[in-house]
């Protein structure tokens, strides 16, 4: 007799657990407040990424087109993927002494894994993380960027 009893008992148990699961999906069906979808292309102007977001490496320039990169190449040595190439040339500075000046700071975004070693090890803090994340391009050459803007120069530290 008890085999028939627990035959119906496990039917009852089965139906109650199934109903428990259906209650959850039913609850979410009637609660649109829980919808988490972001309408991405439409909310583009209101979308603000976290301020520490690592989108790409940039070289911040101040108002009068100065940057902090002295062309030392420490970032190039520290980069595990070889995605930074610093081109420098020797030019006489104000006092006539030959000095190393940054020509081009080439950054290959397609090889960079955003590990952050270049930003951390740069002695003069010239590199920073940009928040731009839309990097899709149609040919790869566009991914090779020159970080220092044309006509920019090293920001002279005013001594004393």
């Amino acid at each position: 007799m008890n085999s028939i009893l627990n035959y119906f008992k496990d039917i009852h148990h089965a139906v109650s657990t199934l109903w428990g699961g259906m209650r959850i999906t039913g609850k979410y069906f009637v609660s649109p407040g829980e919808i988490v979808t972001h309408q991405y292309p439409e909310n583009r102007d209101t979308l603000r990424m976290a301020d520490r977001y690592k989108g790409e490496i940039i070289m911040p320039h101040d108002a009068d087109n100065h940057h902090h990169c002295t062309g030392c190449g420490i970032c190039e040595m520290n980069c595990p993927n070889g995605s930074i190439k610093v081109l420098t040339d020797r030019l006489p500075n104000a006092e006539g002494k030959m000095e190393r000046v940054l020509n081009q700071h080439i950054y290959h975004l397609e090889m960079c894994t955003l590990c952050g070693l270049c930003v951390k090890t740069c002695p003069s803090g010239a590199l920073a993380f940009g928040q731009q994340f839309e990097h899709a391009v149609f040919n790869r050459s566009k991914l090779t960027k020159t970080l220092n803007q044309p006509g920019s120069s090293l920001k002279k530290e005013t001594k004393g």
Partner: protein
Amino acid sequence: MYDFSQLTGAIDAALHRSMTPGWALFTELVIIGLVVLILYALVGLFLVYLERKVCAFMQNRVGPNRVGPYGIIQTIADLIKLLMKELIPIARADKFLFNLAPFVVIIVSFMALAAIPFALGLQAIDLNIGVLYVTAVSSLGVVGILLAGWSSNSKYALIGAMRSGAQIVSYELSVGLSLLTVIVLAGSMQLSEIVASQADGWWIFKGHIPAFFAFIIFVVASTAEINRGPFDLAEAESELTAGFHTEYSGIKFAFFFLAEYMNMFIVSALGATLFLGGWMPFHIGHWEAFNHIMDFIPPLVWFLLKTFFLIYVIMWFKWTFPRLRIDQLLTLEWKYLMPLSLVNIVVVAFITLMGWHF
């Protein structure tokens, strides 16, 4: 209550006046064919859209909302996409059977749609063996699936087809037996007769306990028969990528896709007609005022309300439960649903004999 047979009678009389009886019959058949075709496309596309919206709301998503207002035209866009897709010929596949399979599946669900009573007199064909006709036709669907599985020369498809063959054949029993309960109660297999007999109350209430059990068994077994919900083993994407319609592309895949949704509509329409009183409004005993208000809602709307409620329940199953394994699925049928429906038949026969139903 508007009787559609006046409208159909008027059309019939007009046709007979204007042309010879042979031609009149021919044009009538063409009209009915067109109407059912349009109904087929409309309901199919709407169901696909409804499923994606219901599933999205259950998963905290919004669902299609880009193509047209609230994404209504999304399914039409999908259909056009599928139409434009290239039909990839499968190497060493049995060409004739491979192309025949989708048509078998579509035609079967088309034929079953003809016998459903949408409203008083609005029925393509009112056979006096209506229920037998529908179950017989819908069991042909498994032939199309087996054909598709075998002829696409892919291991996944074959396994998927074998699974769904075993599944549909074994669940025919419980569906048939649960429909039998209402036939015993109503005394006739003619669908319009069954709906007429529910004028004073739906069978699920009048038949009290056995009808309620039969209704539950019917819903579970018919979900299994249309390969949906926790029983979608035929196209279990996590095991067999896409089961029997893996190799199909373009419009042939669209046929399978649409046929699955139409089967869902037919099964819930059948359930609504037999258990929930088809297009009969919801009356409670002698509350004249309440019943009078209920009559304001036209019978066609009543029918669609009940059918879409059942469709919602079937979708609710699919998006909540994990999938059953093939042997558990068959044990559920042979060890649980079959005995219950047999006992149910005996109980309902006894009750109708003694006249204890309302």
